């Protein structure tokens, strides 16, 4: 892992341990490669009372390249029912792809995803969810998403 990447992640981790944004909790950080955070919505929304977990995986080129971010899907956690979230946890969000900027960080990603969930009007899966999930690459970073919908 490049020095700039580990230096930056160390700083982020220190900041997160000190204070997380509202509704975000650090679950596990075994190393500087993969972190798990829990995410819930505090205000009024369709997802009130539900708790999700996000897994961040940082490559050696982070933060020049976006991290891989997915919702954890296991016995304990499910992916939120949202038109931009596939049932395998993959997220179709432009800031994790073409709109990524190196000044964004773990905390800003969490806040953006919170607001993405908060503005949801109807709980449903993206169209073609089953087909995508069947053929999806292991990492969503290998999927070429098209980002169109700015409303939710």
């Amino acid at each position, binding site marked *: 892992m490049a020095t*700039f*990447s580990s230096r930056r992640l160390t700083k982020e981790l220190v900041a997160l341990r000190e204070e997380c944004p509202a509704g975000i909790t650090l679950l596990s950080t075994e190393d500087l490669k993969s972190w798990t955070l829990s995410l819930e919505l505090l205000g009024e929304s369709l997802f009130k009372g539900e708790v999700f977990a996000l897994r961040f995986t940082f490559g050696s*080129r982070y933060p020049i390249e976006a991290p891989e971010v997915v919702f954890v899907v296991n016995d304990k956690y499910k992916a939120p029912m949202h038109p931009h979230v596939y049932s395998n946890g993959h997220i179709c969000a432009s800031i994790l792809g073409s709109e990524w900027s190196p000044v964004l960080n773990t905390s800003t990603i969490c806040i953006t995803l919170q607001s993405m969930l908060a503005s949801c009007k109807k709980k449903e899966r*993206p169209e073609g969810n089953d087909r995508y999930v069947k053929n999806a690459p292991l990492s969503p970073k290998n999927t070429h998403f098209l980002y*169109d919908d700015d409303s939710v």
Partner: protein
Amino acid sequence: MIDGTQESNSEMSDNDDYNFDAELSVMKGKARQRAFDVEAESLSVQDIEAIMKRDAEHVSGIFGAPVSIAYLLLRYQTWNKEKLIERYMDDPSKVLATAGVLDPSTENLASPLMPPSSRRVTRGTTSTRSRQSQPSPPPFMCPICCDDEPPNIMSLGCGHMYCSNCWDTYLHTKIREEGELSIRCMDELCAIQADQTFIRKVVSNQDLQRYHELLVRDYVTNNPQLRFCPHPGCAYALSCAAASTKSALQTIVPTVRCAEKHAFCFGCALEGGHAPVICTVSKLWLKKCADDSETANWIKSNTKECTNCNSTIEKNGGCNHMTCKKCKNEFCWVCMGSWAEHGTSWYSCNRYDEKDGVDARDIQSKSRASLERYLHYYNRWANHEQSARLSLDLYAKTEKKMEEMQITSNLTWIEVQFAKKAVDEVIKCRKTLKWTYAMAFYLESGNAKQLFEDNQADLEKAVEDLSELLESPIEPETIPILRQKMTDKTVYVAKRNDIVLEDTAKGFVDGRWIWNIGM
């Protein structure tokens, strides 16, 4: 004596030397008026770079902006200089803003986005942090790598400061990994684009070279009059104004040749070209022929073609709103209609025409009945394709025969070249013949098709005769006769080939061809 075919045997040896030249000049004379020829120019990467530079300097002169900024603006306007100038004259600030260029009229004012600590740093330049500056600024920490003592910090015109290492990694990732020319400032909300002057200061020579390659590629892709030679590893591009529009391709078949002599179709980039049929027909035919293979089935079921530029698109996620990466055409994946009419129905399309589904089933049931007819044309097409593939063998065999002839007769190496010329002609004509079968498959029965098939049959017969001559055994006493026959036949075959090409080309211009399916 101009036409070599009328010579008698006794005259041959005397007049041989200038005979071929005379024939060549006749061919050249003819070449200018043939209906199936198109004018095209082969350009090297350097030629294209020179054109780009000329355009950029022109724009730079008019706008009073640096050349590197002119490149950014031209790329933003897909290298359409006239349109850029027109738009710029209309509303310069709007053009600059959307292209991600800092407005020079406001450049002297401190940008509100600029952090106070960085004001003393000259824009777009590297600055070594000096200790002796009077009011000690707050310590700078690169917001990307969190280095609080970076050796160098730099910014684009917008003033967002990052250390030079981060810039290098960022530019390298964009240029090398993503092949991206549009490189924004690293700030989340900043739209300012990195220009060449800045990039040159940061990246390695290899990355800079790659950047220039990407620029040239972008220029060629966006210019309808240009196309890269599709031959692997060939760097030439062809310029062909006559075939630059979709409508032109309905009547002309632009087989062009790059400086390395690779022939291809300017319209659809098919290597070797597909004369005498137009791109639409060749594409339909190839698609049909490939339909049996697994790949074709996969493409058929998983991809669709952009309704504007025909690029093949696979959708592997996201909603139905498609934006073609190549031409930026926006359409609906479900009904293939223009996106403009869909509004906000991202995940469902209520414009789906039920009739389409019924039609699709109808077409499928009909396809069985037409399979036999298809095979008739396909087998003949494939036969010529196969022969062309064996052309290397044929050349090798012929060369052996030429050597044999030299030994058994008193002919020189130059004099036995007639056999090689015959092979050249056979290969060329088999290519024409091959495509005439694709054409005939789609032609509606009638007089026009009858005449077309007559010409096709004449050429076919002539080519088979010549092929047979090439196979005939070498007997020392009959070599002069064989040579005469073969030379005559070669000239005749060339003429028949020209007739097919010429007549088909004219037919397209006159609108004589009637198709049995919608084109």
